[in-house]
């Protein structure tokens, strides 16, 4: 009887909490009483939804947590005339207005020196997020590695016991079946890749966080690493399959050759776009639904969209894990294909 009661209590909580959340989130969607709104020029009577969504998804030099809590990140630019310059991006903004700083101007997050483009090496929002992601990974896996050293032969405890099933999953389900006997050499890279993408996806879902894996530059670098590792480790079988496909007549081989060469490049391209699109589209859907509240200015719409946002966020958690799994699986598949040694049949 007692166990039944606590089960029912948990069920009631599980139903009430989303409703509580849904009822209170639209509060922030309503406009203020107009104390300072009426005075300002951008009185938000007409919110430009597409601009807001694109701004939230793109990279920027200033990290906006809320309307007033901002973190101006350092700008690092290099020009031939002026050399390497460090300054705060807050210099470009004065009371929400964009102003030039000396000879430097900023236009939609592009920095210009006397209207010429510069080499922009700044710590932008996504770069800062990348540092946070790396620091988090070092923290967690440093702890796990130390725990393995200290607790030799003992059962895992704490963070170690949380990470161990995931690490073993990557090793036994992703790396070993796809790469084959020589998997140990590539296991560290695939593990790092999987957890980098997984933590990056999860961090991007936090409020106020930057969209790390939804930046096509980040995913392009990860895919470029896959490209480099695959082709550097490609053995004779791999290259002979591309340039001189075995088992087909010669005339067909000439046709297959350009297709195979393009195929070397489309595989990392597909990796890039897959991860980028999955994460960015998820964020855009969440932002578009939240903007509905601002467009309609109604309590009912607010409650409805908060509930829908809750369920879509749960799907996004699943997508975060699945996209990390898919990226790691395709990478190990390509590496496995590159280092594959098989017996030569007579038809080769």
């Amino acid at each position: 009887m007692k166990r039944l009661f606590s089960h029912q209590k948990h069920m009631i909580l599980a139903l009430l909490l989303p409703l509580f959340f849904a009822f209170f989130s639209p509060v922030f969607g309503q406009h203020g009483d107009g104390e300072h709104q009426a005075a300002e020029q951008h009185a938000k009577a007409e919110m430009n939804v597409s601009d807001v969504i694109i701004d939230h998804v793109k990279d920027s030099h200033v990290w906006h947590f809320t309307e007033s809590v901002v973190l101006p990140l350092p700008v690092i630019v290099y020009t031939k005339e002026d050399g390497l310059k460090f300054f705060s991006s807050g210099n470009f903004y004065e009371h929400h207005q964009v102003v030039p700083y000396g000879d430097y101007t900023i236009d939609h997050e592009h920095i210009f020196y006397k209207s010429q483009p510069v080499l922009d090496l700044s710590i932008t929002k996504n770069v800062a997020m990348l540092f946070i992601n790396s620091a988090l990974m070092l923290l967690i896996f440093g702890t796990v590695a130390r725990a393995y050293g200290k607790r030799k032969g003992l059962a895992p405890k704490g963070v170690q016991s949380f990470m161990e099933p995931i690490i073993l999953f990557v090793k036994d389900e992703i790396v070993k079946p796809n790469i084959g006997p020589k998997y140990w050499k590539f296991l560290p890279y695939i593990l790092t890749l999987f957890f980098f993408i997984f933590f990056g996806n999860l961090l991007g879902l936090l409020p106020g966080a930057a969209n790390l894996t939804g930046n096509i530059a980040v995913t392009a670098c990860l895919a470029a690493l896959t490209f480099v590792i695959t082709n550097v480790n490609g053995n004779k079988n791999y290259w002979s399959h591309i340039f001189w496909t075995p088992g087909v007549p010669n005339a067909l081989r000439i046709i297959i050759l350009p297709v195979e060469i393009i195929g070397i490049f489309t595989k990392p391209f597909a990796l890039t776009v897959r991860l980028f699109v999955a994460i960015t589209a998820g964020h855009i859907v969440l932002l578009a639904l939240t903007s509905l509240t601002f467009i309609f200015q109604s309590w009912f719409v607010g409650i409805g969209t908060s509930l829908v946002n809750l369920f879509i966020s749960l799907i996004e958690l699943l997508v975060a894990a699945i996209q990390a799994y898919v990226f790691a699986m395709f990478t190990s598949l390509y590496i496995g294909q590159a280092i594959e040694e098989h017996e030569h049949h007579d038809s080769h």
Partner: protein
Amino acid sequence: MLFSLILDISYAIMGAGIGAGLAAIGAGIGIGRIGGSAMEAMARQPESANKLQNSMLVIAALVEVAALFALVICLLISFKTA
């Protein structure tokens, strides 16, 4: 000439809307087929339900991303013209 210019932009926005709808149809058909065959296989052999469910989720993610390609292009069109 100005009238024909406005006509073109509205066609572009309409095309973006129709494209997004078609992308949703494509995702629906693809994921529906995956779910349907997964259901059939799970009904045939309930012991393999767990394995089938995992594969189903992974393949659904791949098919969904293909639909999202089209969605992103439609969004780009609508944001460029708005």
